[in-house]
């Protein structure tokens, strides 16, 4: 146990934390934009899964990570497009729609995977994945170099998205409009602007981020595709939005907390500490519930979240 607290191990856990936080952060930021526009998208998990699968399969087919990445992003946008169509145009119950998308993605990704690779026999298909990109000079800084500057491309993107999303929401016209949508869409409507159009834009852009998150799970992390590879990350992203109190800074912290739990668990397993591994695996979910219990009275939940907007209805 004494070995455990060596600095190398701590650094390695922290580096893993940043890495593991990547998909959580991207998905949560994507969901934040949608929720600020008033749309509760419970289909994040499904979206990430389909994007992950797209990334994988297009990389496989075209032998190019960039094509895969593009495919993942487009898939993310499309999945969210479907969500916002049902929520903002058809105005159906958002909760159930999100669930339906999850189920669809779950079945569809597996079906397509099996259908595509049905002839390969026992050999599981693999792809080349993104490599770590060492930032010149910065990656040589002791400790921080390994933690922050020796990550993969998508991780850097994820971290940069935090201030980017913040800037978008709080320093641009569109960000202000989007923030209105979640609180009182009638404000936008009575100024003669299209509520629906803005919701579409916000949610589809959010979908791009979710797609990036999904991409990381496959082409950013592992050479194979396993069914349900996203393993609940999408759900955690939803909790992260709540735990982060609908702010980019809070989301960053929450994502890192969850990522830390997983990084810690991985390290512990590797070292062979005598804790039942299921307990550690269950820990993020239990912590999520705890965070939701604690995080209620000061909530900045958008006032009209998941409430469809009808003009002039009783």
């Amino acid at each position, binding site marked *: 146990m004494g070995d455990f607290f060596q600095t190398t191990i701590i650094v390695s856990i922290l580096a893993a934390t940043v890495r593991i936080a990547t998909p959580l952060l991207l998905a949560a930021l994507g969901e934040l934009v949608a929720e600020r526009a008033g749309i509760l998208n419970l289909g994040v998990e499904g979206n990430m899964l389909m994007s992950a699968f797209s990334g994988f399969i297009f990389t496989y087919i075209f032998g190019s990570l960039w094509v895969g990445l593009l495919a993942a992003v487009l898939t993310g946008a499309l999945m969210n497009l479907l969500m916002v169509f049902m929520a903002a145009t058809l105005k159906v119950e958002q909760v159930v729609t999100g669930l339906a998308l999850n189920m669809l993605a779950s079945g569809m990704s597996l079906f397509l995977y099996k259908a595509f690779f049905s002839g390969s026999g026992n050999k599981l298909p693999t792809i080349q994945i993104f490599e770590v990109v060492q930032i010149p000079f910065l990656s040589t800084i002791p400790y921080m170099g390994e933690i922050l500057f020796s990550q993969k491309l998508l991780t850097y993107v994820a971290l940069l998205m935090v201030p980017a999303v913040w800037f978008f929401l*709080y*320093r*641009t*016209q*569109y*960000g*202000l*409009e989007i*923030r*209105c949508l979640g*609180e*009182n869409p*009638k*404000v*936008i*409507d*009575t*100024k*003669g*602007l299209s509520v629906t159009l803005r919701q579409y834009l916000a949610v589809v852009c959010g979908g791009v981020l979710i797609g990036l998150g999904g991409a990381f799970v496959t082409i950013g992390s592992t050479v194979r595709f396993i069914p349900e590879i996203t393993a609940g990350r999408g759900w955690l992203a939803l909790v992260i939005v709540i735990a982060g109190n609908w702010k980019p800074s809070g989301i960053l912290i929450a994502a890192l907390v969850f990522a830390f739990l997983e990084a810690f668990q991985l390290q512990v397993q590797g070292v062979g500490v005598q804790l039942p591994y299921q307990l550690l695996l269950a820990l993020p979910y239990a912590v999520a519930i705890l965070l939701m219990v604690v995080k209620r009275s000061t909530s*900045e939940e958008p*006032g009209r979240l998941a409430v469809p907007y009808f*003009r*002039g209805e*009783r």
Partner: protein
Amino acid sequence: MEPLLRTQALTKKFHQVVAIDSVSFDVRPGEIHCLLGENGAGKSTLAECIYGFYQPEQGEIFVEGKPVQMSSPAEAIGRGIGMVHQHFVLVPTLSVLENIVVGTNTSGILLDLGRAEKEVKRLCERYCVELDLTTKVWQLPVGQQQWVEILKVLYVGARLLILDEPTAVLTPQESRALFEILRMMTRENMSVILISHKLNEVLQSDRVTILRKGKKVATVKTDETTREELTAMMIGREVEINLTKDDPVMGPEILVIKNLRARNDRGQAALRGIDLVVRGGEIVGIAGVAGNGQKELFETLIGVRKARAGQISLLGEDITRRSPKYIQEKGVAFIPEDRFAEGLVPDFSVEENLILGSQRAARFKSRGFIDFVRVADFANKCIADYEIATPSGKTITRTLSGGNAQKLIVAREFAQAAKLTLANQPSRGLDVGVIEYMHQVLLEKRREGGAILLASEDLDELYNIADTIVVIYKGQIMGAFPVAEADIQQIGLLMVGSGTDEFGVACRI
């Protein structure tokens, strides 16, 4: 002089209901033009059509002589038409400035609040409005929120202002101040369409167009008409105040409130020590602008909100910490402010709503299950007794009109002998006919010896039926007067806190 705006045979329908029927009128530059009519006469609908929020089925709109297709509010705003809605359209969690600026997109992608702030400050100075642009809207009193709405419209360069019932939420002084500023605007050749059903205000306009049941009755010059004439045109018949209010016969104290304190949803103090007594056979009317604690008071009285301190006694029994169920079973009836949100389950049938709260009562059950035959019988009786206009008891309540929904609530609440009746804004949004009916019902209760506590923003209503008028201001009772001794000037001052001028107007012209 070419009118600034003219409508020709404008017609708008919702489902099969005709909201406005072939209405033609015009507005001249520099005039205050009132749209007068009862609730449901079509005033708001007409305004929304002019503003492009609704599209009429038929008819045309002309701006400065040119025909215009108002396909959206953006179109209207572009032509200098701005509208302040009856129910404010603001984002409470954003600042005043942000609410004004959002969607105006004058500076590209980036949000340039600095430039906007200068412009808004300039407007404030011009019209003598004192407003801190950085406060969040939820922190503002209702009167000031109105100013945010007006600034929103001025900021985008409106030449024609449409104000929908603007003084519903203002004290008498604030109303006067608003009118002074409107006159200032008209002197600059701006025009105002003022929607109102308050004759006091209507008489301050230049011309009035009276609407009744969606049709235009007439357009008259205000100084050539009288109150009586206007009322007659508005209602379509001679108004008989049928209210026979007997002399008060005060019974024992039924409701005694001592030093009641409570917080609102935001955690701020809403009730700061309310002292009030209501006797049997007495109607106590609470005067006050919305947002001074009426909502929280009623919620605390029926047990939905927790009292932080103080005591509520009903016939001597302390009910301060009791549940809503207990309190209602002790004979308290409650007519809430928001019919469909607080008083009814809109997706339930009329029958089901009539037993809301009594769903466990033995009289509606047999052998442990709800007996729907008994429920139907009860419902049919209520529908008949209270003349609720509904195809049947099985109709979904959502389809009822506001007046009938209110009757449903009254029928339900009075099904049990109510020793104490609590009513929060019971006449809001109702036709004169239904309002009269409500008053009759309340006076009947009074005659039976029941105690009634009524809050209303309509001082006329209070003068008509209350025995005692109290004023609520910032969670405290500012004064109690027998109605005969209640001086409206004094009441008005108390409504703003005893003469302290706290409304947003710093100077007057």
